[in-house]
């Protein structure tokens, strides 16, 4: 027996020894709603399931007083009220999921939204989301007494990397320095050592109509930003106020300095058809998909130091028309996107770039 054989034998027998020390699997500690089932006939789009919230965009005609959504859960977890319980969703309803090991529980707020997409945004409402010691702003709209969570940002991903800091030092926050009342403040920030470790050296402040999928934010950051919500009329103009200061040093996705490059803010809106193959556009195709009907974008926003009015037309792509039936059937989406660094999705930009936005309006036909 040569030394190498002896070595392999020892290694194998040790592995066996260790393997025999493996204990029985602990019960699941997670308490997730993995899937939410409601009749397809009432849906405008697939239910949006996030970590502690489910938003169901329902058709206007839906009777929400007697609905019995069903849920798929983490194996072994339980939910109360039970899956399939008939409840009145005139107001959002809370469900509590308890993990298999009974040590962890999570409350989900389930909302049926029957509203038409609001088209005026004044950025007056934000609440603090707290995870552990960290808190960040989540911006929402307020309509007829209910909160509408139509806005999403990359704040949840930033919070997992950043050191402790106040909520107004997150990329996306609300500010008292609005055009009128409060306003939206987006800033490009460094993600620090941990961010560099995962090749995401900066985070641009962003806010968009749609959802942010934190789960894939580190692996597929472009796909994590799911842009757009159903709209029932054709947009013609995007209007509002903004001001912008570019950060001093521009860096690329690798974190290297790009000399003499100026950061540019981004304000745009995309009106697109939601097809079964491509129901939602994301960071990878929001400006290039063949589903796009029209785009409104400030090409050269410059660096206005005071709030400056903008009114940009939606430019219809050649050969594209809008089908009235499809509009009625919620087959078109609108994405409105703000970012403090135009190439922020690729982690290029200048730390310190700051964009303020307020009093935004989408004009429709």
């Amino acid at each position, binding site marked *: 027996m040569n030394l190498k054989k002896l*070595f392999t034998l*020892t*290694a194998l027998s*040790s*592995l066996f020894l*260790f*393997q025999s*020390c*493996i*204990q*029985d*699997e*602990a019960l*699941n*500690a*997670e*308490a*997730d709603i993995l899937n939410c089932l409601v009749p397809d006939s009432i849906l405008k789009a697939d239910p949006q399931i996030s*970590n502690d919230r489910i938003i169901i965009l329902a058709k206007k005609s839906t009777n929400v007083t007697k609905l019995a959504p069903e849920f798929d859960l983490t194996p072994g977890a339980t939910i109360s009220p039970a899956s399939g319980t008939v409840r009145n969703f005139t107001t959002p309803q809370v469900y509590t999921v308890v*993990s298999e090991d009974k040590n*962890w*529980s*999570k409350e989900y707020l389930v909302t049926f939204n029957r509203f038409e997409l609001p088209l005026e945004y004044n950025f007056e409402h934000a609440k603090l989301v707290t*995870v*552990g010691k960290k808190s960040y702003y989540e911006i929402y709209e307020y309509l007829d007494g209910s909160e509408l969570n139509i806005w999403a940002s990359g704040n*949840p*991903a930033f*919070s*997992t*990397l*950043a*050191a*402790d800091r106040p909520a107004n030092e997150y990329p996306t926050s609300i500010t008292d320095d609005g055009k009128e009342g409060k306003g939206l403040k987006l800033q490009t920030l460094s*993600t*620090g*050592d*941990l*961010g560099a*470790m*995962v090749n995401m050296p900066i985070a641009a402040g962003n806010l968009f109509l749609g959802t942010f999928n*934190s*789960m*894939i*934010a*580190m*692996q597929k950051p472009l796909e994590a930003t799911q842009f757009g919500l159903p709209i029932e009329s054709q947009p013609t103009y995007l209007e509002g106020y903004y001001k912008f200061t570019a950060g001093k040093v521009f860096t690329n996705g690798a974190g290297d300095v790009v000399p003499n490059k100026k950061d540019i803010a981004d304000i745009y809106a995309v009106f697109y058809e939601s097809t079964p193959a491509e129901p939602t556009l994301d960071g990878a195709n929001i400006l290039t998909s063949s589903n796009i009907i029209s785009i409104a974008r400030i090409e050269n926003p410059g660096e206005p130091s005071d709030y400056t009015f903008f009114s940009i037309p939606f430019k219809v792509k050649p050969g594209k028309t809008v089908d009235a039936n499809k509009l009625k059937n919620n087959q078109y989406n609108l994405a409105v996107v703000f970012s403090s660094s135009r190439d922020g999705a690729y982690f290029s930009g200048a730390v310190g770039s700051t964009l303020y936005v307020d009093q935004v309006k989408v004009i429709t036909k």
Partner: protein
Amino acid sequence: MKTKLYITTILMLVFTVLSATIQAQEDRNKGVIISALNGLHYSIKAGFNVGGTSPLPLPAEIRELKGYNPTVAISIEGNVTKLFNPKWGMTVGLRLENKGMKTDANVKNYRMEMLADDGGEMKGYWTGNVETKVRNTYLSIPILANYQISKRWEIKAGPYFSYLIDGEFSGSAYDGYIRDEVPTGEKIEVSHAYYNFSSELQKFQYGAQVGTSWKAFSHLSVYADLTWGINSVFDKDFTAVTFGIYPIYANLGFAYIF
């Protein structure tokens, strides 16, 4: 006649050289023999370490060990044994050794914490794979009680004390997800995140050692020792790994007895 003289001269020369060699050997052995008469015996040992720097018992969070490599971890030791009577003695040694391994494990809901120098932190529960590489070099002093079972068999047991000369504890978490802060927190998929806890390794390490040796020849024996670390390899205030991690190694090799 001439030839006879020649042969005699050669024989005498050979004898002189031979006797000189024997003389030198006797001088050297004299020390050993005098020592032996005083109950002191010297030996040198050379071997390799096979084992793990691992939580103990393996926590339920570890679901599968997909790979294990003991790496080439060598030890050399010089020691002296004082015999109090034919059966009992005491051994004190000085050992330079590597304790290392590479593992690839699958874990579920493994509590971890990562703290960057700039204050950035990532805390939560990891489900996925963890690769670990340990390579620590220690200067160790074993102090062992010694018992002669038979002419050839001997057993030893006692404490050892180690000083870390150089250490590495690094690896990566890959193909899995972390739940932010708590198992019900935001789920974030991660393809690869590297870690290096080398600077958090404890300088002093102590533990228990038990072993046996078998005298194959009058000067050569084979031995097997087990060293079991009692304090964790990490500092007490180190929180990234929530289990105590202990070095548990078998040391196998040969000893030359003077």
